[in-house]
């Protein structure tokens, strides 16, 4: 596995690379970092992919974003485009979860024609019923108004890990999620609450696979289904007993992801034939 600090969008950014083959860019959830993909990265690389796991600006081992904590997922999408270009990835797949899924969808909307496809987990293209209020999140940014943050992240994570996940695994996920910068995670959540690419969904020019766990209290399955319905080539999978973090919750997630990527690749080839 190769670890590098790359200058992306003016931020020294931490990027892990493993394997050879088609590029797969993996994007983490709000406030978290690439460690969420630690089990997936090597397993997927062994299956013939060049797997890139990056820490978004302000997360993990990446330096903070130059303009302060990011409140707009479009900024992260721009950062991802620079990363894809810098690594010279040819028609890569993008896989993201939660805000990472939102960013993946924004990338698909921007440059779907240059992507192999997108796996969008625990995310949708926008909702009429935003789960969080931007005003409330703004108050959370004032430290003195946001007590017991670490405990709330811990118990909040436990509440959205699926019922099929063994207790020890759920505990590990929740404990690791305590490692966050609340300023960064809350700003991420403002980005999530204001994320809305519904107008652009019909123009997405790559196949998309939307994935949602039926124990995910953050995401309404109906919003995911309506997002899928608005995209010309989209599939939707509902994972039983899984919550908001499929790549952390499922032991053999890489196997499942490979199936989805194979399917995206087939559909992508089909699309290219249609256009030639």
């Amino acid at each position, binding site marked *: 596995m190769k670890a590098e600090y790359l200058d992306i969008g003016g931020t020294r950014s931490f990027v892990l690379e493993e394997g050879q083959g088609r590029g797969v860019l993996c994007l983490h959830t709000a406030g978290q970092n690439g460690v969420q993909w630690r089990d997936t990265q090597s397993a997927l690389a062994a299956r013939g992919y060049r797997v890139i796991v990056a820490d978004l600006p302000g997360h993990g081992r990446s330096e903070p974003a130059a303009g302060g904590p990011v409140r707009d997922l479009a900024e992260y999408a721009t950062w991802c485009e620079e990363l894809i270009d810098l690594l010279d990835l040819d028609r890569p797949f993008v896989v993201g979860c939660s805000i990472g899924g939102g960013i993946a969808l924004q990338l698909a909307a921007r440059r779907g024609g240059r992507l192999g496809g997108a796996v969008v987990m625990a995310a949708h293209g926008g909702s009429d019923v935003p789960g969080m209020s931007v005003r409330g999140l703004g108050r959370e940014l004032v430290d003195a108004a*946001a*007590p017991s943050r670490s*405990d*709330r992240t811990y118990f*909040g994570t436990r509440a*959205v890990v699926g019922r099929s996940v063994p207790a020890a695994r759920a505990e590990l996920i929740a404990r690791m999620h305590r490692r966050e910068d609340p300023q960064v995670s809350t700003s991420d959540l403002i980005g999530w609450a204001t994320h809305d690419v519904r107008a652009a969904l019909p123009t997405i020019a790559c196949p998309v696979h939307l994935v949602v766990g039926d124990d995910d209290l953050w995401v309404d399955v109906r919003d995911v289904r309506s997002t899928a319905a608005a995209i010309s080539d989209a599939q939707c999978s509902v994972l039983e007993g899984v919550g908001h973090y499929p790549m952390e919750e499922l032991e053999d997630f890489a196997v499942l992801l490979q199936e989805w990527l194979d399917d995206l690749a087939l559909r992508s080839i089909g699309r290219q034939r249609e256009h030639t």
Partner: protein
Amino acid sequence: MDDTDSGPYFEDFDVGRVFTGAARTFSADVVAAFAEISGDRAALHTEYGRTRDGRPLVHGPLVLASFFGWHHDLGLSTHVEAAFGTEWDFVAPIHVGDTVTYEMTVTRARRTSGLRSGVIGRHVTVRNQHDQVVQEGRTSALVTARHAVDDGETRLGRSFPTTAWAHALAERLEAAAAFTTATGEWDGTIGLRFGDDTVLFRVYRGRVLECGTRTPHAPTFVLGATDLTWTRLITGPVNDFTGRTMRGEFSVCGSGYEYLRLTSALVALVDEARELARIGSAAPANPVRARAVGEV
């Protein structure tokens, strides 16, 4: 066997127990008959409704009244002496031809001071054939007891939100490290509201100085939910307090800051309430689904 020996007594309605039974369809004839009996012959119920196919609306009180018929059909009314307070929400329309199911959860059980009977509180959820909730109700009844004994001690764990329950919980909280640590630097009063009833816990540095319905100062915050939510939380299979707060089942008044500050203390409090309910009841922690009488 004497007739009065059959059917559930007060002691059989354990808090947390869930009853389900046969579905009921409201035909045009039944709705027309109810219009005659009640005198509510409004066109909405007798001629046309506001649906695309124009089916008239079933009277809301007919569906309520039919709950008591369902209750009787299940054999649950044998020892009911009186019906008490009944509050009913008409959540979504029910049309002629719709089929509903009733689900009744026992949310409270309190033996009367004479010991010969007890008052049980029930939450009733009514769903239509599409599994959509169309009515929700809370209703209590006086039910004869099998034995006139003072079993308050053994029933304590599920006697929320009585003061006796609060005292038993307070005792557990003072012995629970997760609670005393989380409140080790705290000075305030936690209020828990069950439906219309609030019970207070005066906490100072991990100790519960007093509990009951009144304290010299107002509560720092009051955490409130329906009896149904508390019952499911305290008697259900897992402590899913956080998930229930995320789904909007709880409301908070007073200091939101102090409520958030006590996040882990409240999880610990629920853990202790669940343990109290478990050891204080012979019934399993999981709600029991009773089979309808005559159901195959």
